[in-house]
């Protein structure tokens, strides 16, 4: 019973600002309130958290677990189960390569290989300088435009390895040591 009367569970205390003073926690609190702190809303809350912070760091998951009164292992389990959630910080720019069947038939694998060669990172990784993250997606549902890519939220269709590298280079800079281009 003593546990139940702890101040943390008091609704007013709950809505108070996060001790760190980080305003982004307010976004999470708003989602929590919208779903009335129901435990079923965990995935929605994590979506908001990732949107606000870019990735789910440990503190964030602890915070969500406390608020929803769920064991931390539960939150961690859900966060790692779904592909959408990332536990590591993402690069400044991101490039998602669709690996759906239509894109596969139109040789999306070559695009991934080209990126790998240029920047030395595999899908799911970020370059050491934090400039570019590469990811693959199951299917973006734009199969008519295969192969499809999403660069910084912009959908590009009918790409070739060359045209994509061109696009990425202009945004991120060359992956190779600098002198060649200068």
């Amino acid at each position, binding site marked *: 019973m003593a546990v139940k009367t702890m101040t943390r569970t008091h609704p007013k205390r709950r809505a108070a600002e996060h001790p760190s003073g980080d305003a982004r926690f307010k976004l999470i609190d708003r989602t929590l309130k919208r779903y009335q702190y129901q435990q079923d809303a965990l995935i929605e809350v994590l979506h908001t958290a990732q949107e606000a912070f870019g990735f789910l760091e440990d503190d964030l998951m602890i915070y969500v677990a406390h608020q929803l009164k769920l064991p931390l292992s539960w939150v961690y389990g859900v966060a790692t189960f779904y592909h959408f959630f990332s536990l590591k910080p993402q690069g400044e720019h991101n490039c998602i390569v669709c690996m759906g069947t*239509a894109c596969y038939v139109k040789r999306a694998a070559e695009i991934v290989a080209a990126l790998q060669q240029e920047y030395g990172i595999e899908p799911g990784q970020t370059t050491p300088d934090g400039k570019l993250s590469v990811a693959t997606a199951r299917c973006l549902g734009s199969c008519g435009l295969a192969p499809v890519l999403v660069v910084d939220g912009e959908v590009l269709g009918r790409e070739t390895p060359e045209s994509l590298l061109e696009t990425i280079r202009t945004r991120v800079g060359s992956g190779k040591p600098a002198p060649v281009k200068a």
Partner: protein
Amino acid sequence: MNRVELQALAERERDAQAAFRCRLLCCASTPCLSSGGTAVQEALQARVSESGVDAEVQVVSTGCMGPCSRGPVVTVQMAGQPDTVYEQVTPDLARRIVDEHVAQGTPVDVNVLPADMPFFAKQQKVVLANSGVVDPERLEDYVAQGGYAAMAYALREMTPEEVCREIITSGLRGRGGAGYPAGLKWDMVRKEQSDKKYVVANGDEGDPGAYMDRTLMESDPHRVLEGMAIAGYAVGADQGFIYVRGEYPVAAKRLERAIRSAERRGLLGSRIMDSGFNFRIDVRIGAGAFVCGEETALMASIMGMRGQPVPRPPYPAQSGLWGKPTLINNVETFGNIVPIIANGAEWFAGIGTEKSKGTKIFALAGKVNNTGLIEVPMGISLREIVFDIGGGIPDGAAFKAAQTGGPSGGCIPSDYLDTPMDYESLRQLGSIMGSGGLIIMDEHSCMVDVAKYFMEFCMDESCGKCVPCRVGTVQMYRILERITDGSATHRDLETLRELCTMVRETSLCGLGQSAPNPVLSTLRYYMDEYEAHINGRTCPAQVCEMNKVPVLELVAAGHGHNGAGHMHTEEAA
């Protein structure tokens, strides 16, 4: 809003539309937007305003019109003229359309898709009837096309039992893949005694190469909502969930907006259309897991847990969300409900084949000239789809296979091009209808590599709960990898077959049970390619790199210095 008010609204809206001399419909679904649809619409709107014909010309953003590879697509509807469809519209062409077609009434003679093109002529739009016609963000547009009249009719004139019977008579089968009769499922949930029941629309379209559900949700969200509300009335549920993939932000946004506008008008929520029926719908957004397309995993995900399946029975119809009876259907299945109620079960049963009724939406993609979204009556032959609607294979290449059902399906080789597309025929060929992805492959695709691609998919997506799926898919993938790099033996082929049977028979859920299908189907039809990889170390389609692993040569006795049995590699020599 009651029935009379609904009718009045529909008439008002139709009059308003008729007042325009010309309507310009711009496709605003994802493929067209990503090929520049927004700029085209802005150019149209700007030109119309410049020409000062705002009052007589309306620019509307609609849902998908079908020929996605030819986007952005614009349709011109003009009084006294058949509709004209323009493909690959650029802002420049858009301005010409306004200047020439709209102003003078003579179509611009570039980029016009002929109206008698087989791509349109061979299709039969039932579920997608409104798609590309209505503005998905406006409830009034949907009502003008007769929207929510079916729900009004069901609520007033039919008992829940009659609605279920109507669906049973129509012969509608689940469009998610397995093809279970939808009416029987509804009736089962209706008969359950419980204080709370749920309706769930499965929009977690995880199959790579399939986007029917997304298009339906983006192009005509109200139709899905109306279908769900009728289902809710039929089974006695007052809460619905619609589960949308995380990759479909546009669909989720449009659904949320549609729900809000329907609630404002009293078409969803409490006391719908002044009856005693309450029905709320919430959107739940997935977070990227293929297994969540499985119904028990999907329910776990809705409840905020990891999307891992649980053994059935008990079926969701008895014990689903939070232990209550739950009706789960695919989004496309719900899309069929409105036409069935509106036109009657007999009309619906008249379309399609004896056992597979109605139409099916396919996402036609891969090596085919016209890719896009098509809706055809069940029983149409694959040949008609590929060569008439699809316009054949590009670059004069030969048709090799059609892949249906995604990672749970199989391949149909060219010998079976005349097979009717229905649930039974496809199952006989070792494939499945699936949710409707249809990928065409030409001679440049290696079938072993295709099998490997799908196995890699299943291996990644296995949730890890049961051993056969978790471990079996990895082992099968490794064997396929060996076959495609040229280091496999005949023994591997036997093991592969054994594993296929084991995984299929012993896995917990549909993902594992169907994971071996692509392998089994390619083994069945393309054994010669497997043989060529293993015996000849060649890839007939020249896709696989067979020289990654050096050949081991057995040096004949007498030749080698150290006698028989000594092996050395080519590389070392």
